């Protein structure tokens, strides 16, 4: 049962990391144009980020 002492903080930490990643995507406006992004990925010219 000692392993719980490690596993529980690890699982909480992972959850927190996921939450932070979500917060970051939200901040970067990655949900602003889902329709366009789904098409953009198929284009030949590579644009790695919005220009404006």
């Amino acid at each position, binding site marked *: *049962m000692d392993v*719980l002492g490690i596993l*529980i903080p690890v*699982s*909480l930490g992972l*959850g*927190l990391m*996921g*939450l932070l990643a*979500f*917060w970051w995507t*939200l901040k970067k406006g990655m*949900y*602003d*144009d*889902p*329709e*366009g992004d789904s*098409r*953009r990925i*198929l*284009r030949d*010219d590579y644009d790695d980020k*919005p*220009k*404006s």
Partner: protein
Amino acid sequence: MKDMQSHAPSVSACPACAAGGAACDQAARAPQADARLVLSVPGAHCAACLSAIERGLEATPGIRSARVNLTLKRVSVQADAGVDARDVAARLERLGYEAHELDAGTLNMTETDRQGRDLLMRLGVAGFAMMNIMLLSVAVWSGATDATRDLFHLISAVIAIPTVAFSGRPFFVSAARALRAGRLNMDGPIALALVLTLALSLYEALQSGPHAYFEAVVMLTFFLLAGRYLDFRARAAARSAAQELAALEVPRAIRLADGREETVPVAELRVGDLVLVRPGARVPVDGVVTAGRSETDRSLLTGETRPLVQAKGAALNAGEVNLTGPLTVRVTAAGRDSSLHRMADLVAMAETAKNRYTTLADRAARAYAPTIPLLSLGAFIVWMWISGGDLRLSVNIAVATLIITCPCALGLAVPAVVTAASGRLFRQGLLIKNGTALERLAEVDTVVFDKTGTLTMGTPIPDNLDDHPAEDLAVALALAEASSHPLSQALNRALRARGVTPAPVTDLREAPGYGVQGDWAGLPVKLGRAGWVGATHAATTGAYLSLGDETRSFTFTDALRPGAEAVVAALRDQGKTVWLLSGDVAPAVEAMARRLGIEHWQAGALPAEKAAKIAALQAEGHKVLMVGDGLNDTVALAAADVSVSPASALDAARAASDIVLLGRDIAPVAGAVAMSRVAVRRIRENFWQSGLYNLVFVPIALFGYATPLWAAAIMSVSSISVSLNALRLGRRGQETTRA
């Protein structure tokens, strides 16, 4: 720049566009310091469109970058100062995309964006907390006991309590607001369930009890927030649509101050100001003509198609379109006091009746909201009596009942369907402005169309060009080019399209209110009104050409809007009664009705008569859909059960209608009616589905057999099945609307 202007669709689709375009034309002369431009591009729908628009715009000098947002069907452009939205729109038009300038000032999306992100953040926190708690709960469900279970419960509590405090805030705030107003809304029982369940679970965890409902509480928060977010998105789309429409017509006017012309927003005009109205522009205010002579088109205000001659001393109403000569107007009423706004106020009054519509969700909530706490209270009292006063057992059962009956699926039932349906309709070019429009549309059995500007494009097209010799056409073109009168413009476009080159006519001058005259190889030539050129007046709309003593007449018909035939046929197939109500003369209306196969028609209808006809149909028990575009349709649009107007309509008409057609094609209207019926059926199915879950599981909870595992399982299964049912709409809707 010059080249772009000549290609610009200044008098393109309809009178409203003509005036809107001309308004932009004035704006083009006033370079804006801010070079971030936003345009609506309703035609963009695919990856190829993205590339074509972005590359096409970026290849244009002066434009630094362009980015299309396909979700909102908008393009934002970074450009050098001096580049005007009008030029960008013209460029897009040449690329093959219909474009409308949007006023970036009116289009203040930041508040909506902030709210949306806020909700999404709360949803995210609830989601991640749910996952972590579920991890611990699975361990408890699979047999953890004693100290391990208590530890897991306590860790769950540490995660759940701050999560619910943060993520559940929208429900607490809304419930408190409703209670303070003495009402009970759906959020009341939800907030009660969240708080009570959390409190009980914490108590049980501290007392080493076997059951704690932390995962159920967080899960409930998560699913309800998901429903709330979808609902918000639908409403934000409606709100941005309203803003977008307000922004479509950028209201500017040319004010004459100390002999100088300056372009100012219409809102800044005061009574007594002098305003210059150029030919082709819409009169921005009510006023009196102080100089100039011209004709104005009031068809959008009254339905009259014949232009009226205006000279010094004549009173003009806001919304009229100046046709031939420049007019100087002294403002007598501006903004809120103008006749255009008074009309809008009338419409607002007619609309309050419409807002009383009770949605399916309202009816369900009204039945459901009091039931939940009452059921739970009943369970508590009965179990207190059965167990002889075992408070802990009774509270446990009451709380289990509360959390199981909580309308998780109910919260998702409507928003999921509305989101799926309005998304599908948006892709077909229909913008739903009003949240309840979909449900009202489903009940429609009678469809009333306006003629001019709705079933037709409102653009005259000459129909007898073949009757005239090529030489005369060349002269007509040379004269037509010199005027901005709608008929001249129509003649100009039609002749250009036939490849006619203008004859060398010199000494061109426009006689405002009459026509254009010039000199062709020594022969005086005129193009204009019948009396002025010396021709006899024909029955139909026409323009007359005189070459010395010889006269020629050009007659015009109105072009049919694309999809007009298809929409009438499809609606008749669906078993709807179709009406044609027009302010135009009987022969024209009858011809149109016969051409489209419409049985019921009425000509010469005044605005009030249109509204009265709709009221009469409603009195017979029909549910009426009105499709119209003019200011003379606005009262009818507001009076109908549900209304649609094209994006080219006057803004008062668009404001009065529930749904706006973004593209030029009117055919999607029939698809929307079919889609709305499917959507409402899905909503009903969802209600029955979530009701069924409750019917099965409430007894289980009441008899005390419910466990946290049950609660979690029911919640997820019912929410997922409701969402899947809503998503089914997407595919089914597609079949229905394409069929």
